């Protein structure tokens, strides 16, 4: 069924493309939001991915792999968006990722003090991407490797490093509180 829609969209049927986009939309947005940590940037990335998808659909070689191809476009769009954020941050005030997130939305940031949330925000976009694809999109590691465009071994090691980085970030989140308790 989806392959039929993909083939129609490849032939220029925009209604078929709109149907495909509607089916994928919520998960695309959620994935971009997790990777980028910002709803506005997520919207930009999804928009870029959908535009690219429509334009390049006729070049898709395997219509049955549309989902993986679409998520690859999305992850690439997220990388581009993250790079723009990085450049902007360096030009402005040189905040680290944690502080930048707080500066973007201080009220929401102060309200949300869950340590895992903050630890996840400390990860690099590449680490957030592999964790999101595996634990949010429920992809297998080989499927995630295809989406992010790396060999299987690279995807495995990136997943391992991402989990280690998340543990380290969790530990870092706890450290100030422990030190504060010891000091009082």
């Amino acid at each position, binding site marked *: 069924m989806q392959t039929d829609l993909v083939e129609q969209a490849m032939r220029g049927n925009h209604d078929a493309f709109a149907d495909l986009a509607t089916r994928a939309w919520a998960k695309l947005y*959620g994935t971009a939001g997790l990777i980028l940590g910002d709803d506005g940037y*997520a919207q930009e990335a999804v928009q870029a991915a959908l535009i690219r998808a429509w334009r390049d659909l006729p070049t898709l070689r395997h219509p049955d792999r549309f989902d993986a191809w679409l998520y690859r476009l999305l992850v690439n769009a997220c990388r581009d968006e993250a790079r723009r954020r990085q450049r902007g941050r360096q030009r402005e005030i040189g905040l680290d990722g944690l502080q930048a997130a707080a500066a973007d939305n201080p009220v929401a940031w102060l309200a949300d003090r869950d340590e895992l949330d903050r630890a996840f925000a400390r990860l690099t976009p590449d680490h957030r991407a592999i964790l999101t694809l595996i634990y949010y999109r429920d992809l297998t590691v080989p499927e995630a490797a295809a989406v992010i465009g790396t060999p299987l071994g690279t995807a495995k090691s990136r997943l391992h490093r991402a989990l280690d980085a998340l543990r380290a970030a969790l530990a870092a989140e706890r450290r100030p509180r422990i030190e504060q308790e010891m000091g009082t």
Partner: protein
Amino acid sequence: MTGRDDLEGRLPAFLANRAPSPEPGLLDDLVRQTADLPQRRRGLMLASIGWLVVGAAAAVAVLVGVVVFGSGLVQTPVAPGTHATPSATPAPGMTTVSLPVPVQEKAIVEQAEMVFANRLKALGIGTFTASAGNDLRFTFLIPPSVDPADVDAVLHTAGRIEWLAWPDGAPTPNVGDPVPQGVLPLFDAASQITSVKLTTGHTSPQVPEVELTFGPVATEALATYTTSHIGQPLPLALDGRILTAPIILSPLTGGDVIITTPSVPDAGLSAAALAAILKSGPVPSGWTLP
């Protein structure tokens, strides 16, 4: 202490809760945007190739006969333009045009493709494709209702328009002349044109006009400049050449400008073509007009 299994076990629920949900209606907006975009043809080498429309740079020698600023109406001379003639293969009711396109940088080509697709669409041409086989081409169908001269004009005009602060005491600007060095625009027109309409009726029911609305920066700049330069020219330039040079009769404070082009056989740029160009914006810098 958070162990490996504990952390990995917490992640699915954590990410599901943390993932944002899109606002209703947002998807419709995004999908609608893609409806206006052309699709690529299979086999196109995106990473290393580009396209360039073919035509004559002399087509930039466009003309505008009358410019209306508010209540002021000033006649200016008209210069002839030239047209490149694309190779065309007749089709039932339509003219098929396939323009060979030289290689350019990918990013520039992608931006230019969007600009040209929008310009042609504004003229009433909906079937525009960029394709590659042994060479690169823009291909589209011209319906009988569209003037081929308009197509020619929008393909061969970069589209950089400027309202010039003409120096006091400088010679009167002539239509078709290049903009002298050191003469600067009053504002960035590309970012300050907020609306472009193809209309009729301000000067004559039969004469097509381009009605422009400006943003606040341009509105203020025009008001300030024209208030202190009554009786002086306010040249309008397109792609570095004077398009028309009306004399300021009264301050322009409304933020709207109406440009009227003449209906003469050798006109290089009709109101329809000018409106299509201004609606779509200029081609990207770096795009080479042949």
